[in-house]
């Protein structure tokens, strides 16, 4: 399957082409080049998936294929490799990334129309797509880290796309610094892993491991911190809501569907190591996920900026995936990885797949709405369903999917996650069911706030909202179709913990509970928010003003960070270090320069430029040497 190399090369070429030519080509041409290359990548990815999954299984599992694996940097007995690894999860990710990216490319034709830097935008999109594809096909943890940083950079560039807006610049810096901070732990984890396992590969080398039995869980947890930063897990989630300053299609691609699930993907990639050597440490993953899911859902319930609601909902849903990976248990009858005990693995990947589609759909729908009303605030919306029928229907379907209503895709994947959680511990299972209920509630609060309720007549008087152009509605329709059918994919046949085909059985008690809970939440949201006025919401707001305020301000976590970094770290650590650097280190070198300067100033009179004086000194020197020789 050598042609898979082109999946990486095509976006790279289009990035270089668009980046170098920039404004020398027209906006339309740039968009067409980017979209066409992405279209080719999508076709290649689908073809790869078709060929990979139709190949014969060996011992019941799909074989790992490595069409390329070259040693990039030999380093003693270690070596960094670069290559392409195809296995069920990487092929699944190829499909997710290329599909969403293609939709975003098409959508951006409409959304970014007439923007300054349109070419630059497409160049960065290509860069991002290349990096993300490189990340998922990485053959070893080091290559993954390399592309991991590249997606971080492209995310930074795209969040700060509107570089004249101070908020966008601040958000891009925040995203970059927070994820870099987490990546530092990732790097330390990689180095520990490489040191003890004598390899950076995902295939585990048992001999080298004997020496560092304790270190492997440590390395995995450190890598998880990196993944938590990228996937916006509590308490490193603070960058994601601010990242919404970027263009909306970028939020759909990077901050909802692909890059933010890199952390989940990383854990899934290292899953055999986790389950074999660090099953206890997986409870960290579970509890980080549970706390994040609950926290983000609580905050999402009160936000007024529609993109922020979606951002917090993304955080919450990714936490679902994390929890699902964490609740996997080692097999009971000898086999380390057992499909039944590790149901969460399959559920997590399934949810990743379905979530990428419906969350991209939600974000793109939000983009259409923002395009129509020129505002992110819910107060500027309301009653939009008559103006934007396509957006309305697709948004509703996506909301139903995320709320977990059958037969939409979210129901199936979320149900598997809840089943896995119940199997692990009823406490986790019920908390997650509660979070699922909150999900349904805040999504329908959002839905009713946008499409129903009172119309903002004052705002709409001089600018009637209108349906988005075809370039924007087409991706919505495509993603809606995927959301409608994705739940019926026999996902367990393609991706499962052990690799063997696994039939998904709906656990009807869990499924019934989650449907009832979701329907009840939607009913509640309808009751509270659907009307022209919202007396109940106002009453609730009046009853718990402090709680509302705390949740609206995201429980003041940003302020806590601000306090810790500015008041404590900057004041008591950075400032003394800066003083030391400025005064002691710089002072020493300034003193050296000053001394040299003064000394040369003192003796520069000797360099008179008079030839005869030089000759006299020369002769004197000869005489002195002669005298010394004679004596």
């Amino acid at each position, binding site marked *: 399957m050598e042609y898979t190399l082109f999946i990486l090369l095509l976006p790279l070429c289009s990035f270089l082409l668009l980046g170098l030519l920039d404004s020398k080509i027209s906006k339309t041409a740039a968009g067409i080049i980017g979209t066409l290359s992405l279209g080719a990548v999508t076709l290649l990815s689908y073809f790869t998936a078709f060929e990979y999954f139709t190949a014969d299984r060996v011992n019941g599992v799909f074989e790992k294929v490595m069409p390329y694996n070259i040693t990039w940097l030999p380093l003693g007995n270690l070596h960094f490799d670069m290559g392409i690894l195809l296995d069920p999860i990487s092929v699944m990710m190829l499909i997710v990334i290329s599909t969403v990216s293609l939709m975003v490319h098409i959508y951006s034709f409409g959304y970014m129309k007439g923007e300054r830097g349109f070419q630059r935008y497409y160049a960065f999109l290509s860069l991002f797509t290349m990096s993300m594809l490189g990340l998922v096909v990485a053959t070893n943890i080091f290559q993954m880290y390399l592309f991991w940083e590249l997606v971080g950079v492209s995310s930074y560039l795209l969040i700060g796309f509107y570089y004249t807006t101070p908020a966008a610049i601040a958000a891009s810096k925040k995203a970059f610094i927070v994820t870099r901070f987490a990546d530092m732990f990732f790097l330390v984890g990689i180095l520990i892993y490489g040191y003890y396992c004598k390899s950076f590969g995902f295939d585990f080398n048992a001999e080298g491991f004997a020496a560092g039995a304790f270190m492997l869980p440590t390395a995995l947890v450190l890598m998880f911190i990196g993944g938590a930063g990228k996937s916006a897990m509590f308490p490193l989630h603070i960058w994601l809501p601010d990242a919404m300053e970027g263009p909306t299609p970028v939020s759909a691609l990077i901050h909802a569907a692909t890059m933010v699930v890199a952390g989940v993907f990383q854990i899934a990639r290292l899953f055999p190591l986790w389950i074999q050597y660090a099953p206890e440490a997986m409870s960290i993953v579970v509890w980080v996920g549970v706390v994040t899911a609950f926290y983000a859902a609580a905050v999402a319930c009160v936000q007024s900026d529609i993109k922020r609601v979606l951002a917090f909902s993304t955080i919450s849903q990714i936490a679902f995936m994390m929890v699902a990976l964490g609740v996997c248990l080692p097999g009971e009858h000898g086999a380390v990885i057992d499909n039944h005990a590790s149901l969460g693995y399959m559920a997590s990947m399934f949810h990743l797949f379905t979530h990428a589609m419906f969350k991209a759909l939600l974000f793109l729908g939000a983009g259409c709405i923002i395009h129509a009303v020129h505002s992110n605030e819910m107060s500027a919306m309301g009653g939009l369903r008559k103006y934007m029928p396509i957006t309305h229907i697709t948004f509703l379907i996506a909301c139903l999917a995320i709320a977990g209503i059958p037969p939409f895709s979210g129901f199936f994947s979320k149900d598997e996650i809840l089943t896995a959680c119940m199997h692990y511990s009823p406490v986790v299972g019920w908390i997650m069911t509660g979070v699922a209920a909150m999900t349904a509630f805040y999504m329908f609060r959002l839905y009713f706030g946008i499409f129903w309720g009172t119309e903002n007549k004052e705002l709409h008087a001089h600018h009637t909202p209108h349906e988005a152009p075809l370039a924007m509605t087409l991706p919505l329709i495509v993603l809606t179709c995927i959301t409608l059918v994705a739940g019926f994919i026999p996902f367990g046949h393609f991706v499962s913990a052990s690799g063997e085909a696994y039939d998904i059985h709906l656990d009807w008690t869990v499924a019934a509970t989650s449907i009832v809970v979701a329907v009840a939440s939607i009913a509640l949201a309808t009751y509270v928010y659907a009307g022209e006025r919202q007396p109940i919401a106002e009453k609730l707001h009046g009853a718990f003003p402090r709680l509302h305020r705390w949740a609206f301000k995201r429980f003041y976590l940003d302020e806590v960070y601000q306090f810790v970094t500015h008041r404590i770290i900057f004041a008591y650590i950075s400032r003394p270090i800066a003083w030391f650097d400025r005064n002691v280190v710089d002072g020493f070198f300034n003193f050296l320069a000053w001394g040299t300067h003064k000394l040369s100033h003192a003796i520069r009179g000797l360099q008179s*430029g*008079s030839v*005869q004086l030089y000759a006299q000194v020369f002769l004197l020197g000869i005489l002195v040497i002669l005298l010394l020789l004679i004596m």
Partner: protein
Amino acid sequence: MIQLEYLLIISAVMLFAGIYGFFTRKSTLAMLLSIELMLNAADINFAVFNRMLFPDGHEGYFFAIFGIAIAAAESAIAIAIMINIYRMLKNISVDELKQMKW
């Protein structure tokens, strides 16, 4: 046969006259002449010591001739430089040549 001392005295006088001239003259042309004097003193020494110490050899004479050739070449270059300096400054006094200092 002329005694060794007389010849050496002549060359020593020439050498110190050259050194003195080099130190005291302000005209670069006069300094060049002084350098020629010093070189000639050295040439004489070559010839004298060859004759006194190795009457059968010729190396000293060769060196003397070599020195003369070098002196000729050197003065050709030096005079060319001086002509150029004169064209620029209308002066060849060594004290005036300060442009090259910085």
